[in-house]
């Protein structure tokens, strides 16, 4: 007979992010009788079929697939050359649609200029088109911003003209507060500023905005989807990544949010370590080999 604690353990093995492989081995290598009572006991995974057997719940199968694939995806993502990795992430995001455009923003804005160039080259090799060409498929108003971000080769040196930064903060302020907020994605000057200025310049702009208007640029862009993501990724990346990680471990997190966990940890481990990220929050919800891999990744985030 399977004890309630076994049933609970079975449910638990699939209820985090990743799979508790060890637990499964010890629960499932028991007698058939044991397994039968596991099925009867687990209301999460099995439902009573009218033909007299405990049938696996359809939605659980899907979840299981995702859970088992997490380790695999993490391995592949971490093994790929960063250029190929980013190119593939971008291509997938374009294909999957508007809910995934933040990934494109993330790739374009959190990589160094040369890494982004590398991703563009890899994209040529893999997909025989430029990223800009494939972005043509996007009919929505996000296209302009995304093309501009992906095409940027930002200056990475120091030296910011504070006067220009301040006046450009004003341009953004007026675009957001005095203009038609629905047309922000069409605002040529705003897009030009966000897509062509160096990150240093934009961070100075961010400071000026805060000082001049008593709120942050990110706050003013609340609800503005990829515009807010753009600003955060360029000016306050740690805020962006923290937000993504927290969304991944929430109770009702969807599959995309959970996938972001792998993506962020694998691709940003150096950054996370630099910012003193402590994996306490996520530790509890990760499971199995996937958990080991993620924690080891964070621990190994040497800054090269």
């Amino acid at each position, binding site marked *: 007979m399977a004890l309630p604690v076994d049933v609970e353990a079975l449910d638990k093995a699939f209820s985090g992010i990743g799979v508790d492989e060890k637990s499964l081995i010890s629960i499932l290598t028991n007698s058939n009788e044991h397994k039968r009572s596991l099925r009867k006991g687990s209301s999460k995974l099995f439902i009573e079929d009218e033909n007299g057997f405990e049938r696996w719940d359809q939605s659980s199968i899907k979840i299981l697939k995702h859970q088992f694939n997490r380790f695999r995806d993490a391995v592949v993502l971490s093994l790929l050359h960063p250029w190929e990795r980013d190119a593939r992430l971008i291509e997938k995001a374009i294909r999957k649609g508007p809910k995934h455009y933040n990934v494109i923003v993330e790739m374009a804005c959190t990589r160094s200029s040369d890494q982004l*160039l590398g991703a563009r080259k890899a994209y040529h090799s893999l997909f025989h088109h430029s990223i800009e060409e494939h972005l043509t498929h996007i009919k929505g108003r996000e296209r302009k911003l995304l093309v501009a971000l992906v095409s940027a080769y930002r200056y990475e040196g120091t030296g910011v003209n504070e006067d220009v930064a301040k006046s450009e903060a004003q341009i953004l302020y007026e675009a957001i507060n005095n203009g038609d907020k629905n047309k922000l994605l069409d605002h040529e000057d705003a897009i030009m500023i966000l897509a062509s200025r160096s990150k240093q310049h934009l961070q100075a702009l961010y400071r000026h905005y805060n000082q001049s208007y008593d709120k942050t640029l990110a706050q003013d862009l609340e609800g503005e989807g990829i515009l807010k993501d753009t600003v955060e990724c360029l000016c306050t990346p740690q805020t962006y990544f923290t937000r993504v990680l927290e969304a991944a471990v929430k109770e009702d997190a969807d599959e995309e949010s959970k996938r972001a966990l792998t993506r962020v940890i694998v691709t940003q481990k150096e950054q996370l370590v630099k910012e003193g990220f402590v994996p306490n929050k996520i530790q509890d919800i990760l499971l199995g080999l996937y958990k080991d891999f993620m924690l080891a990744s964070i621990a190994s985030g040497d800054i090269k």
Partner: protein
Amino acid sequence: MATIDVPEQVSVLADAEALRKACKGWGTDEKAIISVLGHRNAVQRKQIRLAYEDLYQEDLIKRLESELSGDFEKAVYRWILDPADRDAVLANVAIKKLSPDHHVIVEISCTRSPEELLAVRRAYQARYKHSLEEDVAAHTKGDTRKLLVALVSAFRYDGEEINTRVANSEAKILHEAVKDKEFNHEEIIRILSTRSKMQLMATFNRYRDDHGTTITKNLEGDSGDEFLKTLRTTIRCLNDPKKYFEKVLRNSIRRVGTDEDALTRVIVTRAEKDLKDVKELYYKRNSVPLDQAVAKDTTGDYKALLLTLLGKED
């Protein structure tokens, strides 16, 4: 094909010494400078600069800048730079003019290969501490700005594949955009700045086949419209760069008073690329060899350098 004549054996040390000798003392031996630099390719010129720096602890370029003057000095300066660095300088000069030279920016972004354009962007940053697209954006406005920023930021796929369905549909889009004279600039800019060059040529050919006339003819109009002018230059550069360069040369010489900037720019930037083909086009078009036309319209050391780069035997 290139026009410059480079000897089989080259000793960059001997060259550096020869250049030093040409600059020492009163006056400068311009002929010696031309006879060395005018017969060296980009790799060799770079090695000569390094050798000169090693031997004399001095920047050869700075030395030449101080010794030479006028159109000759400008030409030597542009010639001696690395191609990517040179393009960066040309772009910056074009941008910073009171009335920016849009066609130079188009020329650089559309006639260089994707990799070459990337190298120009890097060189531009190294020199000017801004990105090329930043500076273009800051000095242009409106639809012209949109077009130029898109062109300099492009990293086109370099392959040979053509999608005929796309060529067909985009030729239609271009025709729609052009016909209304209400030019849907967004679509034109998108197509011209993202498609590969092979794909665009297929599209332009399709346009011509469908409408019996080239797209550039259909764009002719108010010559005061800066966007239109820039657009025409873009399409010409993408469609047939050699023909475009022939036209620039023809216009630069024909003018009352030669446009030395344009003349220098084309000869210096194409001498190691396709100037020979451009020369042939020029002869076909004007029944006068380019060398002859240049010789008639220029003088002195400037003329001597240009003719050397055009492949004239010493």
